[in-house]
């Protein structure tokens, strides 16, 4: 197991290398050279030459890449073109809100979606199953910003239970964190709950048709235990797959949700950096998000082996 883990972690390194190469190439593929992008339209040739020399842009590309990579590995992500602050610092300050939002969303979603899916599978074909699935379809097909504004309208403006906007970190004030994080979490969870509930239902249903479920019935195992103990664990692999890829898709939802609720997180930083064409910032954000994707994939692969003893790499 440990050997497998070590091998898998080692395998992520070349992937990260390729990502870094692409990110590096991005800046050089953009129209004009990086110096003219950085200097802006109004820069004089002298200014451009000065920037080129300062950034080492007159060196061969391979050398530039290695230099750039070395700096990143030392934590030096460069300066933002826009704010002229260190990129690492900018990202660091935005990490907390997004991370807490993502963790809360995944937790809430799994706690809601898996029981929902299992229940629907167990009551397959009945009214309760159809209701659950109708809710799931609705949740899946409603755009994130509609859910967000809808929740704000009902629970903030009408009921007045939650603040309309803003964010307080958990470390600063746990109570205020809960009040500010609840609506964004619910917003972000809707799609995710729908996705996971549906895959849970269909995987559990499929397993319930297997021979060993018949064996379990033949030995007098109660129905609830059949569903929870025999079916759910066997259904785990497809569920984990969807939970993993869903978590990756969450990033898109994070951008919208942070904008709707005015949360100073990474999602908004992504939007801001793209609009400002802040290339060093974009590069770092892509690298960071790629790393997150890779880590999620790694976690999914490791979870497979936990749930299914037949999967041994």
């Amino acid at each position: 197991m440990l050997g497998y883990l070590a091998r898998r972690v080692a395998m992520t390194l070349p992937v990260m290398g390729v990502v870094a190469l692409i990110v590096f190439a991005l800046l050089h593929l953009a129209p004009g050279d990086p110096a003219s992008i950085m200097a802006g339209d109004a820069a004089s040739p002298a200014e451009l030459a000065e920037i080129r020399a300062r950034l080492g842009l007159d060196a061969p590309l391979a050398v530039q890449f290695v230099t750039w990579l070395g700096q990143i590995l030392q934590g030096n992500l460069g300066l933002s073109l826009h704010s002229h602050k260190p990129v690492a610092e900018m990202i660091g300050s935005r990490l907390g809100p997004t991370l807490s939002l993502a963790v809360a969303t995944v937790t809430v979603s799994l706690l809601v979606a898996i029981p929902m899916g299992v229940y629907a599978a167990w009551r397959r074909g009945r009214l309760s199953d159809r209701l659950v699935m109708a809710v799931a379809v609705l949740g899946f097909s409603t755009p994130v910003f509609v859910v967000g504004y809808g929740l704000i309208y009902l629970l903030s403006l009408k009921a007045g239970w939650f603040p309309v906007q803003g964010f307080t970190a958990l470390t600063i004030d746990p109570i205020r964190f809960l009040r500010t994080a609840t609506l964004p979490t619910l917003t972000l969870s809707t799609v995710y709950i729908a996705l996971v509930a549906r895959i849970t239902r269909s995987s559990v249903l499929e397993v319930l048709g297997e021979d060993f479920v018949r064996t379990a019935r033949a030995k007098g195992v109660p129905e609830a235990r059949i569903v929870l103990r025999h079916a759910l664990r066997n259904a785990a692999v497809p569920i984990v797959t969807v939970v993993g890829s869903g978590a990756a898709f969450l990033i898109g939802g994070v951008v919208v949700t942070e904008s709707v609720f005015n949360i100073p997180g990474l999602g908004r930083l992504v939007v801001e950096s793209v609009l400002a064409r802040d290339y060093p910032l974009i590069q770092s954000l892509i690298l960071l998000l790629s790393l997150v994707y890779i880590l999620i994939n790694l976690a999914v692969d490791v979870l497979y082996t936990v749930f299914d003893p037949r999967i041994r790499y």
Partner: protein
Amino acid sequence: MTAPAPAEVLRIEGLTVSLKATGQPTVADLSLAVRAGETLCVVGESGSGKSVTSLAVMGLLDPAALAVTAGRITVDGEDVLAASPEQLRRMRATRMSMVFQEPMTALNPVETVGAQVEEVLKVHGIGDAAARRRQVLEMFASVHLPNPERIHASYPHQLSGGQRQRIVISMALILRPKLLIADEPTTALDVTTQRQILLLIRELQERFGTAVLFITHDFGVVSEIADRIVVMNRGRMVEIGSRDDVLARPSQSYTRMLVASVPSLVPPERAPGGGSEVLTVAGLAKSYGQTRGLGGILRRKAGVAALHPTDMRLARGEILGIVGESGSGKTTLARCIMRLVPPSSGSIRLDGTEIAGLSNAALRPHRRRLQIVFQDPFRSLNARMRVRDLIAEGPLNFGVSREAAYARAGELLERVGLSREMLGRFPHQFSGGQRQRIAIARALALEPDVLVADESVSALDVSVQSQVLALLRGICDESGVGILFITHDLRVAAQICDRIAVMRRGEVVETGTAAAVLAAPTHPYTRELIAAAPGRGWNFAEFRAEPQAAAL
């Protein structure tokens, strides 16, 4: 006859089970009884309703598809059909148990087998954890599992088919139920394993006085274990009686037909035929590489030999049987010869042309000359294609005109015993036997020199099986195609093959004429295989016991 008859454990009266959708009965007006210590065999072909009957007794019918519409089932005096779901649940494993056909899928793949057997005790509220574990280990010893402690902690995929079936039997019998229903429990196993499992069921039955309802399609097995036999056909009971009555003096023509269809282990007299050599295999070997290390990229370990260097000859108009148990390499050999998998080394000469080393492009013109008929007629035909196109596809690929190919498809369909009018139909409109005929027609359409039949009759009922065997023999004699006939069933091999090669662990251990191999085997493994073939104590064709061969 002074001793009172043992108590009736299972009694079925006037049972009718109907399809919910159409109301059509799949089992109609069935009555039977099984006494303690007795084995009642229910025999029938597919669709006879034998499995539905067993599931009805267990209360395990799919409630969405099937419903009991009439009759009464009592197990150990308790009415199964009137029981509440909770009562029924408590009866399972304590009064009635079931062993299923497929030991590969009957166990939960993600839990240890020990936990799964312990679960029986747990859900019936027996013992504490330590006592349960002890009892399971004892049970594993009773079913002769080696090293019970290690097995207890194993997952199903780490065990062999025979071991898994022993686990399922442990599960079924650990609470000493009065009734054991065994639904084709040995059909998926090799003959030598089958023999061990049959012996085990008998041993436990004698020890615990269990009544056994044994469902099977195999008259060989029936002749060895049955006290009484029920013959079923299309949901109805055809005949019931003692083993000797049904096998030796069947009163119904359907039973006579079934019993007489069981292929004999004695090959029929056949003139030593065979023309010129069409296929010569020399030193053919296949090993599968196992890779490990960084995602399989870096290190490559030594391979597993699926086929050791093998020599083989096949003449025109000859049927060469390749016989062996699962994992013996017979399918690997066939696939290498077909070049469906690339052989690791060796030579394959097809009518003088060496094809082992040809590139795929160079091989293409020779593909026509090697054709195959697979085991499962339900999956080997493209469900979206009409029969006409299925048969004509090969010739069209090789440049035959559409009219000519379609005309030939009609001829071939008639040759395999179907009618030309069926050309426009789809595979699902045919029975298993008919589909296998279509698969044969498809293979013949390219006028091959060599036809590989890979377990081509194994999925068919005995009565259909004998017809398809006769068809293959006729085609071979008529067209002179050489047939490699792969089978695990010695009876089938005896009936159709001129010569037989016996394989074990990737090696041919014995080759000879069918009569020589079956009557005077020289290799101990061949002798073991023949000894394990069920029903050697019975001559089915002549409806009498065969005293010289020892029964189980």
